[in-house]
């Protein structure tokens, strides 16, 4: 479906101005009462809109692909290894990295709310927070993966990680074939957000996607 019409899609929010009005009223109430500083609101928004996002996680993945010692540290103590690249803080205090292999495919969900590793992936996409993914990821992971275009062969173990506590999970996807000789930066370019949630495969470079 297209997203030209917000009212088609509950989780993109209705186009009504009542929400805009309600939030504006709440904001001015809290500002008038001295409970929030509008400049701090701008700073919070700017942080998550422009500074923190999945390119951070992509750099972690690319580093792990080129540096076996880093990958080892990442799998043993993810929080510290990720902090080496400067990605720390809220909703990423206690990280766990899950390595995909030819025999294991990892996928992350939060069935109870929408827990997500903010410092490495930014704020979660709408589908991750919405009922269809949260309900089905644990009972029909292969069906969900199929809808994302990820076919997992029957001899590969699917591991679903439900983020029910304060651990935050990042999937380390497999390095695609045909990337020998790629620089760390070039590799980071290939890494998608979805691959780090475990619902996307990374396309091998240099090949046109068949349509």
């Amino acid at each position, binding site marked *: 479906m297209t997203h030209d019409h*917000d009212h088609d*899609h*509950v989780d*993109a*929010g209705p186009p009504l101005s009542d*929400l*805009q009005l*309600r*939030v*504006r*009223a709440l904001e001015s*109430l*809290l500002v*008038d*009462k*001295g*409970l*929030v500083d509008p400049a*701090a*609101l701008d700073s*919070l*928004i700017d*942080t998550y*809109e422009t500074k923190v996002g999945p390119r951070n996680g992509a750099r972690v993945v690319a580093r792990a692909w080129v540096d076996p010692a880093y990958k080892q540290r990442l799998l043993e103590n993810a929080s510290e290894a990720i902090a080496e690249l400067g990605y*720390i*803080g*809220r909703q990423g*205090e*206690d990280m766990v990295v899950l390595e995909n292999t030819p025999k294991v495919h990892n996928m992350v969900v939060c*069935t*109870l*709310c*929408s827990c997500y590793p903010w410092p490495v992936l*930014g*704020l979660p*996409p*709408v*589908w991750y*927070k*919405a009922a*269809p993914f949260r*309900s*089905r990821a*644990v*009972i029909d*992971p292969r069906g969900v993966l199929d*809808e*994302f275009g990820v076919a997992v062969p*029957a001899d590969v*173990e*699917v*591991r*679903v*990680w*439900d983020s*029910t*506590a*304060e*651990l935050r999970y990042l999937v380390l996807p497999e390095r695609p074939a045909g990337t020998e000789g790629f620089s760390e930066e070039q590799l980071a370019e290939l890494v998608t957000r*979805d691959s780090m949630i475990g619902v996307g495969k990374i396309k091998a470079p240099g090949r046109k996607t068949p349509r």
Partner: protein
Amino acid sequence: MNGVHDMGGMHGLGPVEPEPNEPVFHHDWERKAFALTMAAGFLGKWNIDMGRYAREVMPGPEYLTTSYYEHWLYGLELLLVEKGLVTSEEIRTKRPTAPAPEGLRVLRPDDVPRRLRAVRAARMEDDVPAKFKAGDGVVARNINPTGHTRLPRYARGKRGVIDRDHGVFIYPDAHAAGLGKQPQHCYSVRFTARELWGADALARDVIYIDCFEPYLTPA
């Protein structure tokens, strides 16, 4: 609580709909709902577990027909009133009538980077003995509390194996109820898809759930 937020395993909630090139926020009010919730949270009048519970108590039909940041807004208004920062009258009339409590540390723009980069949250240094170790068989308790819990319904009464001990963390069930941190070990527990969903599930597939020690009994 057995609310609609606890969705794992439900059918009929529609297809997953990824949006290509999705923006971080879809509407300006979402930006503000996010930032107001974060800034108000930093006032320190409630913790993250109370924050989650405040969204869970949104009536089920409303929860299912509203968007994520509407859940946040619901929780924010509830907590602001419950903690005495604003009155429901003020929210209704959109006008301040009473002064805010004194002594609050309001989040300033200069504090934002430091507050967001704090590396300590729920992990505790307390020396709490662990009842379980990796490889131990466990059964998730069949509990149905009306308060906050992080044990999803689909795991209750099911048998799993401890995969790893994550260490000691704030116990959300107590923390959300204002009963202190009550540090507990939190374990990653491996459940087979067959144990959770029956014989039709693939024998190979598994689900890992992070479980606090009080959720578990020895198998």
